[in-house]
């Protein structure tokens, strides 16, 4: 069911062009010579690769890690209920003898967006072997055989957008006692020494819903490479023009990385303590098995070499990626490619 689709989309124009030339050439009554082996070197440009990125729920930070600081266990094990392993980001976090720390989720939680970023470049090397000929007419044979190829495709999809919404933010307070709090930003270390902060939470934190804006930058990049095997058929349209069709099984491996950076700003936040920039990155590898079909029109430069232009269609499984709270589905099910290159016969 996919092969005719390929013909319609990728090779239809070439087929018509070739048929016209074939008719003209056939009238010349020339003898067609076809070599048994052919090697193709081609460049590929893929279209119709899309991705859908879904934002899962963002778990807000919880003590001792906060959006704007930390109150962690130090080398002493927080002896005496105090630690020197703490830090804070903004001067406004010091309020009424307490250091306030905050934790919020993301306004993008539960949303998703789809995007495409065509074309994607690659290459392919193939070898074909003629196995037989069928006479279509007195002067025109149909040459058939089997070909195998190695192909590689660079995937590169980038997406940036901004989403308004709201976040739920909790405030935690720690009393500073009698210390002179270092100016912000301050980062204490595990081994210290430094000012000691109580590890006992002060007055219970409050929770607010605040308007927020999320800026997201997503990058999906990697390689899809592998082998294709299947039959092919060629019809010489003239001494110089040949039309070729093929199809078969494709076994491709993906090595793709999903990474993102999300920045949340709180326009109405009075103490300017937004959640930290959240980012994650993860690579995935997966073998995919599917089908392909192609069509091309070759123009002979010499008796043993020609240039060709054509199209290719892939049908593969979608590729699922996950990094941090984001998941992505890369649509490889209906990829169209434009191919072009050199063909050598011998």
């Amino acid at each position: 069911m996919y092969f005719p689709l390929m013909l319609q989309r990728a090779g239809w124009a070439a087929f018509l062009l070739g048929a016209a030339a074939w008719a003209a050439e056939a009238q010349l009554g020339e003898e067609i010579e076809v070599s048994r082996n052919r090697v193709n070197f081609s460049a590929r440009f893929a279209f119709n690769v899309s991705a859908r990125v879904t934002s899962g729920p963002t778990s807000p930070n919880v003590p001792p890690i906060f959006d704007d600081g930390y109150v962690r266990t130090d080398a002493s094990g927080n002896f005496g209920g105090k630690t020197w392993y703490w830090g804070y980001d903004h001067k406004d976090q010091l309020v009424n003898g307490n250091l306030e720390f905050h934790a919020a989720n993301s306004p993008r939680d539960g949303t998703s967006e789809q995007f495409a970023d065509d074309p994607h470049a690659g290459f392919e090397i193939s070898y074909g072997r003629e196995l037989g000929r069928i006479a279509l007419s007195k002067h025109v044979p149909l040459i058939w055989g089997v070909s195998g190829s190695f192909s590689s495709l660079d995937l590169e999809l980038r997406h940036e957008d901004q989403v308004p919404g709201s976040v739920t933010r909790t405030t935690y307070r720690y009393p500073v006692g009698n210390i002179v709090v270092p100016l912000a930003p301050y980062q204490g270390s595990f081994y210290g020494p430094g000012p000691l902060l109580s590890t006992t939470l002060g007055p219970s934190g409050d929770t607010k819903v605040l308007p927020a804006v999320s800026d997201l930058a997503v990058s999906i990049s990697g390689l899809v490479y592998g082998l294709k095997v299947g039959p092919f058929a060629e019809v010489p349209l003239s001494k110089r023009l040949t039309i070729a069709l093929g199809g078969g099984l494709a076994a491709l491996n993906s090595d793709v990385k999903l990474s993102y950076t999300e920045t949340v700003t709180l326009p109405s936040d009075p103490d300017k303590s937004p959640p930290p920039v959240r980012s994650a990155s993860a690579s995935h590898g997966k073998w995919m098995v599917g089908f392909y079909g192609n069509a091309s029109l070759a123009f002979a430069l010499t008796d043993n070499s020609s240039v060709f232009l054509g199209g290719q269609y892939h049908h593969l499984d979608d590729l699922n990626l996950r990094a941090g709270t984001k998941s992505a589905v890369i649509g490889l099910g209906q990829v169209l490619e434009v191919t072009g290159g050199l063909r050598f016969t011998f």
Partner: protein
Amino acid sequence: MTPARALYVGAIATNEQGWLQVPVCLVAQGDEAAISFSLRFSTSALAYTNYTVPVSDTNAVVTSLDTGGTTNGPIAATNLTSQASPGQLDFALTLPSGSHLNAGLRTLVSAEFVPSTNAADAIIAAGLALDSPGLTNTAGTNLPVATAVTPQYMSSVTLTNLADQNGLFMSRLTFANPGATAVPGAWVMVLNLTNDSKGQPITLYNASGTTNHVLLLQLEFLGGTVVFSVLDVAGLVPYLQLGPMAAGATAELTAAFYVSDRQTVPTPQYEVVVMPPAAPVVSTNAPVFLDRVLFTNGVFFVEFLSTNAVYYIQYTDDPSSTNWSTSLPPIIGNGSRVQWIDDGPPRTATPPSSQTNRFYRVYQQ
């Protein structure tokens, strides 16, 4: 490096009666055959009673005077010419003919005094001096020798006012100069820093530096017998810089101990040696921008953003002066904010609360 020949009054001990044991020590170079000197003291503070020469020591390393000669024989004459005059003891020590001392630190004699008041006040007012030193080798040639009266470690008080501010164990140490003359400065070597309960070493956080500790002797009075014991052997020990001290003056400095578990109480021991102050640090870099200089609770807080570099803090009471003092040790930045606290010696010469104003600047090395 071989220490220079020096004759000095060492750490004064107090016996069970409250009497003072004043040791006179020699850093011998190994060729001394005869030694003489006068020990002066203030008769209003001290009353001389007796002297002892170490005789009971059985440790071959800490050899005492009577076994220190190359012949291992007794000293031919250990002569105290009584009190040549009020407040002066003249000693003459002679080894057998052809003998000389081995190189090293040894206590020559320990003079015993009854304090006129309490021991601490008597030490401060002792007015000790070593005069007319005369050292010769086996050929009778005079040998050069330096003399000094070592400032005395008097007491320590645990401080709690900054415990939460810096997470350190703080001790305020008091020293006195029992000498009749000023000393240019001293190093207070801090010994017996053990590990904490987590096995991490306790360190002197505000050490002015480290120095090679060659040999230390402790004079003890046990059951009426003076004995000597080794406190430490060769190795690097941290020290605090004590500034110049006038005769009969006292001085304080703060020792800050880093203890990773914050619960093992340090039990340091202190030993003082006379040492001129370090040369001032001169920098041609532009000063680092200071984010805050805050005076509260009698101390100054100086804050600045650091990189992983070395910073020197300088201070003065007169910003128009070109003679800024440098606080030692330097600060090693950590890439974050540094909160440096001036609570007086040894970081600065005097407590900031004793000044009408104080100015700071910070240089990156």
